[in-house]
């Protein structure tokens, strides 16, 4: 086996050419490709960061709006409670006033009724008294016109008194009613 003029472990002129080729490839990648790719990557990171910040902002806004809404709702509730309480108080006072007024009216009516009763009674008594006078007069005439009889007089007197009682009790009952 003759030893070859070249050995596959020994470099030759190819070395220079492929070195140049590699450096050209490296130059193109380093100068023209990677900067563009890195710019795109950086820009995307910025975009994502911006979007995240915007999302955080939106979340904060939403939370703030929610808090405002809650506060307003609470205020509205308190206001409603106050209004209902006020209405209840008004109703209570109105009711109390009505009761007082009604009581007063009732008292007034009762008082005037009692006064009327008293007047009527007075009138009845006076009328009865007048009638009793006439009866007594008539009774006295009868007594005078007849023979005096104690027992007969006693009967007449009782009769007269009963008549008066009937009159007055009837008048009193009518007045009380």
């Amino acid at each position, binding site marked *: *086996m*003759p*030893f*070859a003029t*070249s*050995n*596959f*472990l*020994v*470099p*030759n*002129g*190819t*070395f*220079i*050419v*492929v*070195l140049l*080729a*590699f*450096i*050209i*490839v*490296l130059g*193109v*990648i*380093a100068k*023209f*490709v*990677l900067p*563009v*790719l*890195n*710019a*795109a*990557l950086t*820009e*995307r990171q910025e*975009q994502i960061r911006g979007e995240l910040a915007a999302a955080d902002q939106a979340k904060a806004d939403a939370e703030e709006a929610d808090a405002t809404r809650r506060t307003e709702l609470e205020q509205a509730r308190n206001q409603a409670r106050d209004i209902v309480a006020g209405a209840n108080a008004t109703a209570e006072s109105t009711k109390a006033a009505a009761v007082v007024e009604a009581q007063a009216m009732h008292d007034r009516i009762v008082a005037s009724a009692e006064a009327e009763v008293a007047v009527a009674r007075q009138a009845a008594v006076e009328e009865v008294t007048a009638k009793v006078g006439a009866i007594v007069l008539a009774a006295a005439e009868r007594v005078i016109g007849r023979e005096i009889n104690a027992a007969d007089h006693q009967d007449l007197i009782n009769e007269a008194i009963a008549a008066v009682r009937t009159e007055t009790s009837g008048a009193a009952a009518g007045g009380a009613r």
Partner: protein
Amino acid sequence: MGPVSGLYGIDISVGDHVQRKLFGLTINVDIVWATCIAGLIVIILGLVLRAKATSGVPGKFQLLWEMAVGAVQTQVEDSIGPRGAKIVPLALTLFIFIFTCNLFEVLSIGSKLEWLPAPTSDINLPLAMALFVIVLVHRAAIKNRGAGGYLKHYVAQPFPPKLFFVNAFMNVVEEIVKPVTLTLRLFGNLFAGGLMLSLLAALVIWKLGPAPIGAALSVPFTVLWKLFDMAIGAIQAFIFALLTILYFDTAMAEEHH
């Protein structure tokens, strides 16, 4: 190089290239054009991205790029920190370019000369990239520590200064070995991959009587191997880029006294 073996009736040769002389230098023309095609593919992919890149919702193509860039950036920031941002383009280009080169091996059929050999299966491209990286690593180390600090670094660690000669020996060996291993790891994996394809192709001549057993086995084995080879290509591209980052990390590290 000549045939490895004629013992089994097959003639597998390695390191064959279409060669031309240019200014007294031997040029492996097939490797040059394969390198240029791989480079053009990477450049076109890059320029398409440049035209289509959007800060909006990225397409699948842009997403792929972003994943690669993101992975490299994470790796760089984890090991070097923000100062390492400058080497992201280098590490990224290394990964994508080497991966593209390595994928060419899928097109290989195991013949003596390939139309489109994986450029990384030739020693020149891995060596060129490894030396390029190592030169930049040393430049970064000098920038970081100053010329005096850079030289002092060779003798001052890892052992106490009394053992400076041991330190110097270990460090010099380490610095020499770095580009060598970087080169040979990539080259060896891809070269072996091509060799494996040649062996699988040669399997076709294996017959038991009239039964073409080798031919029947060759196809599924080749398919399996190519799937495996794609994984190797990705892993080697990743390792090359990762080691580049780690070498820069060592060079740019703060001094710990």
